[in-house]
């Protein structure tokens, strides 16, 4: 009996059509890694600067109000909300909830829409849009 050498492989990641659930899954990891590295570095610098006094804090403010620093902070704000919302979704799916195709897709889209909206609201407030 001939041995079939080219056995079919299960479809690999690259041939799947991207859906919101896959985007949210990988975003959860990317934002988690980003918050762990950049987010906690900023938190540590912030607390060190507050403890260090007026001059140390002025350096932190100068960096955070620089256009690049602001981009980083806006990015971290979005990452915080995305990780927060997809984290809540993660905890719910851990209990077995929300695996129906429709609910899974809708909740994935909701985390992305929510994180963008929350980031816009927070920064509009900080930049004085509501002042």
């Amino acid at each position, binding site marked *: 009996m001939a041995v079939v050498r080219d056995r079919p492989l299960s479809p690999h990641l690259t041939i799947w059509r991207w859906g919101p659930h896959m985007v949210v899954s990988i975003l959860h*990891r990317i934002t*988690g*890694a980003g*918050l*762990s590295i950049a*987010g*906690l*570095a900023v*938190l*540590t610098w912030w*607390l*060190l*600067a*507050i*403890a*260090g*006094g*007026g001059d140390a*804090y*002025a350096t932190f403010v100068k960096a955070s109000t620089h256009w690049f620093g602001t981009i980083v902070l806006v990015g971290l704000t979005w990452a*915080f909300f995305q990780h*927060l919302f997809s*984290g*809540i979704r*993660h*905890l719910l799916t*851990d209990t077995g909830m929300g695996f129906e195709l429709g609910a899974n897709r809708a909740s994935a889209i909701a985390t992305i829409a929510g994180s963008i909206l929350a980031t816009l609201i*927070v920064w509009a*407030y*900080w930049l004085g849009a509501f002042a």
Partner: protein
Amino acid sequence: MSIGDSASDVGKVLGLGSAREGGGEWLRERLTSVALLLLGIWLLASLLFLPKLDQRTLVEWLRGAWVAIPMALFVIAAFWHSVDGLKQVVTDYVAGDISRWVLNTIILFFAVAGAALCLFSLGRIVFGAAA
């Protein structure tokens, strides 16, 4: 079911939980996530409601027990959750037990150092001479 077990007794009979080890980290990642859910929202809301974000205001704010304690807990939960989360990413994407161990150890060193810096700064703010 105890901390360190990712499945209940019934779950074990059903073949749930970790196949080898890591059940404790799995559960701890979720417990710290719930802590961060509450503390993260508290921190962001506090920063939004503070009248100003200058060094003097922040020192005065952080010196209160009802701020310093949740801030310390936020720092501990955030670094702990990051260690577990990054470990999961390393486990999934890095091949080889030695590489994984080295990377996880580096991550642990940075996290402990970062958490120590944060808590030291917080201690200096709370117990230092009033600005």
